[in-house]
């Protein structure tokens, strides 16, 4: 049994499982996730994938909205710099992401809640490893209580 599996079981006993809203760009990262699947690489099932055309399509409001609606963490992934299908979508996005992450941290929100990475279409293994890491970090933090809105 993998280490993740054990942690997951322990958490299930407590009745809480982190939910990670995961935004993947259509051209690289979504394909990378797909590859992880067809290659039968195991990764925790805590992610909920939302496909976007490009990491440049991400409006940070999406991420805030996910956290407000009860996601415990957010993961965003796009093509590696230089590989974006739209040439520079991820390069413009990179500046937004860097600043957004800094803003949240400065405002007192755990930086592990919102994570960014690049995954190419051929990196099924990298995708699984990133997901594993993110899920583990968010699990350590516990449920998102700061931005969530109780309805």
């Amino acid at each position, binding site marked *: 049994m993998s280490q993740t599996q054990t942690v997951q079981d322990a958490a299930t006993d407590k009745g809480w499982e982190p939910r990670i809203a995961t935004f993947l760009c259509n051209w690289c990262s979504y394909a990378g996730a797909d590859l992880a699947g067809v290659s039968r690489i195991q990764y925790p099932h805590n992610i909920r994938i939302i496909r976007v055309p490009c990491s440049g399509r991400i409006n940070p409001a999406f991420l805030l909205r996910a956290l407000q609606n009860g996601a415990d963490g957010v993961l965003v992934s796009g093509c590696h710099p230089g590989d974006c299908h739209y040439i520079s979508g991820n390069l413009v996005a990179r*500046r937004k992401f860097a*600043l957004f992450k800094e*803003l949240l941290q400065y405002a007192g929100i755990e930086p592990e809640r919102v994570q960014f990475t690049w995954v190419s279409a051929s990196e099924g293994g990298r995708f699984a490893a990133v997901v594993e890491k993110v899920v583990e970090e968010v699990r350590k933090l516990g449920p998102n209580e700061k931005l969530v809105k109780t309805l």
Partner: protein
Amino acid sequence: MTPSHEIEARLRETAEELLREKRVDLFLGYEKATLPFRTTPLFLTSPEEVERLAWNPFCTTNLAVYLPRLFKAPASAREAERAPPLPTVAVVLKGCDARSAIALVQERQVPREKLVLVGVACPGMVDVRKAERALGEHEALGAGEDALGNIHVVVEDGREVTLPREEIVADACLECRAPTPSLPDVLVGEPVEGKDPDGARRQTDEFASKTLDDRWAHLQDELSKCIRCNACRQACPMCYCKECLLDQTRPRWVGTSTDMSDVTIYHLVRAFHMAGRCTECGACARACSMGIDTRLLTRKLGQEVEDLYGYRSGESADVLPALSAFDMDDAQDFLTEP
């Protein structure tokens, strides 16, 4: 420091000349308001009325906020046909306001060639709330400036009080790094130095040194006062979007209630949209009737943009704004690596 009345006289001359020679259609300046410690924006179109123009320690409004609406693009082709030609506008700007005007040019909201930037070297403007608080239960009936730049007040029982200027100047003015407008078409007044140009850094460093949870607690405490009136947004010269994300209803990104989650997200969104765009004028903080430190987050983001991308908004009309640009080598150490 050039005395206010001299600046006022120069402004009136300038306005008279520009309007009389029809070099501008509109001269945007300040006029005395009905209450002490305040001025109200003045839209001047006739050279006969320049006597209404005022310059005093209470010219707080960032007049750049009125520019985008004067140059608003017509909503439809039909409207465009009927639209009058674009006006030429002269506008009185302090150091920070001038940055806003240039930033608006950078973002193509106003055409540079239609503007006459009348810069005034700014000695720092009075914060109404600080001034009123300094008077305690007394109420000012009139306020002016003495030769040293301190604020001379007559209170309701006829007594006269002098408030030291630096004690009642707005926080943004204390931190200002460029009180003398750069790139004006006309500059009025002797150049002025910033009072505490490192103050902003000191404040962010201090806040950043608190623990994560203390920062959150402070922010929540501050924002719990928010009444969601939108004054911080409306007073900001850089908040000109035709439809603000915070107003969108399909979908509604941010709830309208005073639920702390909604309020916090309102402020995170507002602050984030100011990253690399805020010109540190403090209009948002002055507009907030609840006294919320709306600059807490915007201040930090401005510094972050400066550190990461070497950019400050409104410093040059020809540069691409930091968030519309990129560099292959931009820092990406914030990324998650497996």
